[in-house]
């Protein structure tokens, strides 16, 4: 990593690192995002390489900041995992209507197979739904090149570009040659009024939508002519259309086939696909996840074979691609189950779940390490939907359950998740309190542990661990009108912690309990950051 920026032309990089290297080479003004596997390392690497990167409270804010950067004529990179784009979608759809002066590259890191996610949505659908051009790298070299191309496309057509990656592209290391593509230097940031292009009131949004469709038609023509798609000539009996990491599996198991590898998968190079399909006896689409390319081809009247429905679920790999090509739908061998992840020995979340189990609570849970509270030995989390849902779902349960059950409901959310999208839930709790009150338990372990110890606004340190403004949960809860606000270390005296939760459950008022103790794995680093920051202030 340290040698990344040296003059060696070749390095072995993960896809995430390669995106960061491209962002450096393109002089991206600012990288924004919210940590999420498998995207997290992009901004961390960008910062290590000397770029300016920051964590936002959530993906929507990260994208909004990035839109502002692109309105100023500069280059912005915004990173998130697939489900993060749901949060940012509101901004994305209308940003597509606006006219950007600089570049806006949105990285969506999808997680087919759900190695570390709550669903396996295929975000290629977003490109089509929002009308945003999309590039899909298949290895780190392309992650590097496509990031640069995305910036170029964004600046040429004044639109956001989606760089859609997947877990295996983000986290696999492959050889990268730097400097294979050069793009113009960024222009200096500037501002010029352009009301009709950036103020999306209906009167301006209507022509903006027409403009967007016209732009997409131009990009489609360009993609057909000179887009980043690759034809590998082979047998005329079998042709395979593919994109992303699936391309690698195709080359592994069907080296004899003709292959059309699509780099830009929205708008699709339909005429190129048609010509390819007509040049072979049988044209098969090999893609991970949804039948996105299949549907695109068939809508255009191109005859292609897709994969059997069973291969829509989970990741692809060489064996599965071989099975698809052999039209093999026999049951797949089940992998030997490995050891499941578990809360670390001594983790402060352990005493929390022990107490909640002892009190027979109904727990509306959320996303983070503490999601592991659902597994044995605790089995003390009853719901998990999306970031921040603990509070809303908990309130819904309180509103509808009979009083005896309702009073056992607790919403449990981590510190970073609370900042991400729990604050509006807390506002809802104050605004529409259940008759029997409610208990919100914020598990503050001082870091975004799940994704690898990233900072967040509640830690009061930036992405680079430097002191900055801090959101104080206690002050926030009180300022919103919650009277019972408690802070407690759940591990120091587990029985005292349990008694406090019992006390809160027994009152018909609203309570916020902040269970605060640093994550075991992060505690040492946190102390070190604090020491450095104190020295700097002295």
């Amino acid at each position, binding site marked *: 990593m340290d*040698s990344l920026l040296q003059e060696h032309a*070749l390095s*072995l990089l993960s896809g995430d690192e390669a995106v960061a290297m491209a962002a450096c080479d393109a002089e991206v003004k600012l990288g924004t995002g919210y940590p999420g*596997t*498998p995207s997290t390392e992009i901004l961390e690497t960008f910062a290590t390489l000397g770029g300016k990167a920051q964590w936002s409270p959530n993906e929507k804010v990260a994208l909004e900041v990035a839109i502002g950067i692109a309105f100023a004529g500069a280059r912005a990179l915004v990173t998130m995992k697939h489900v993060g784009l749901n949060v940012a979608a509101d901004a994305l759809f209308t940003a597509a209507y606006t006219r950007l002066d600089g570049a806006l590259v949105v990285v969506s890191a999808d997680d087919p197979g759900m*190695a*570390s996610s709550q669903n396996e949505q295929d975000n290629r659908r977003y490109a089509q739904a929002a009308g945003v051009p999309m590039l899909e790298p298949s*290895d780190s070299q392309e992650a590097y090149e496509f990031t640069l191309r995305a910036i170029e496309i964004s600046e040429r057509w004044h639109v956001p570009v989606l760089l859609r990656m997947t*877990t*295996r592209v983000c*986290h*696999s*290391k*492959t*050889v990268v040659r730097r400097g294979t593509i050069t793009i113009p230097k960024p222009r200096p940031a500037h501002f010029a009024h352009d009301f009709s292009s950036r103020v999306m009131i209906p009167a301006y949004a209507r022509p903006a939508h027409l403009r967007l469709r016209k732009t997409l038609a131009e990009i489609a023509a360009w993609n057909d002519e000179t887009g980043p798609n690759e034809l590998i000539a082979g047998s005329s009996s079998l042709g395979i259309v593919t994109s992303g*990491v699936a391309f*690698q*599996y195709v*080359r*592994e*198991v069907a*080296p004899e086939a003709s292959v059309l590898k699509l780099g830009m998968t929205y708008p699709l190079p339909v005429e190129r696909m048609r010509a390819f399909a007509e040049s072979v006896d049988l044209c098969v689409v090999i893609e991970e996840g949804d039948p996105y390319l299949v549907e695109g081809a068939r809508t255009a009247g191109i005859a292609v074979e897709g994969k059997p429905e069973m291969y829509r679920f989970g990741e692809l*790999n*060489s*064996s599965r691609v071989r099975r698809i090509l052999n039209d093999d739908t026999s049951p797949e*061998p089940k*992998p*030997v*189950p*490995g*050891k*499941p*992840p*578990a*809360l*670390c020995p001594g983790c402060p979340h352990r005493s929390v779940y022990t107490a909640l189990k002892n009190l027979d609570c109904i727990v509306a849970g959320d996303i983070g*390490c503490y999601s*592991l509270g659902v597994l044995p030995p605790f089995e003390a989390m009853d719901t998990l939907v999306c970031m921040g849902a603990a509070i809303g779902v908990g309130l819904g349960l309180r509103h509808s359950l009979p009083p005896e059950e309702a009073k056992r409901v607790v919403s449990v959310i981590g510190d970073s998740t609370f900042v991400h999208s729990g604050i509006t839930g807390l506002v809802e709790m104050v605004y529409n309190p259940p008759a029997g009150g409610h208990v919100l338990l914020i598990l503050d372990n001082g870091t975004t542990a*799940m*994704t*690898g110890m990233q900072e967040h606004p509640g830690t009061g340190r930036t992405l680079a661990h430097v002191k900055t403004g801090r959101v104080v949960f206690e002050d926030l809860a009180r300022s919103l009108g919650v009277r019972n606000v408690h802070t407690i270390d759940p591990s120091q005296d587990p029985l005292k912690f349990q008694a406090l939760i019992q006390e809160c459950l027994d009152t018909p008022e609203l309570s916020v309990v902040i269970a605060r103790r640093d994550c075991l794995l992060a505690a040492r680093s946190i102390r070190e950051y604090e020491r450095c920051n104190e020295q700097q202030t002295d």
Partner: protein
Amino acid sequence: MSSKPTNVVIAGLGGQGVLKASDILADVAFSAGLDVKKSELHGMSQRGGSVSSDVRFGERVFSPMVPEGEANFLLVLAPDQVAVNAAALAAGGILIDPSRIDELSLPNKKSINVALLGALSRHLQFSVEAWTAALRRNLPEKLLEANLLSFSIGQAVEPEK
């Protein structure tokens, strides 16, 4: 047609140094001028659960993951993870597990990952100098000496036929 890549799967439990070992191996192969791909999963898997990492190297590598049943070498850091990963191994592939090494002879138990790399090195073409350089690039200075010793202890283990 290019020759087939060498496939290595390294497996163990979160915190055992599986990813570090695969980084070192990938680095050695990369430094030898080979095409290299290395694959692994981050995130949830770090919490003490099963972890595995695939390293492939050769003239040209496509899939970053070792295709099932095609691993030439399977390095397993935790004895209870052998069965979990056994399907990765090719017919005639070589299993390298901790039973091959006297843990008490290691400067510390944590360096078992590097000791197993030492055992693996007997089967590969890379020079001791290349391994040493890769260890140097991938480990902090204060851990280097213990790991170099562990590597040589692993290297001294007679390879199985």
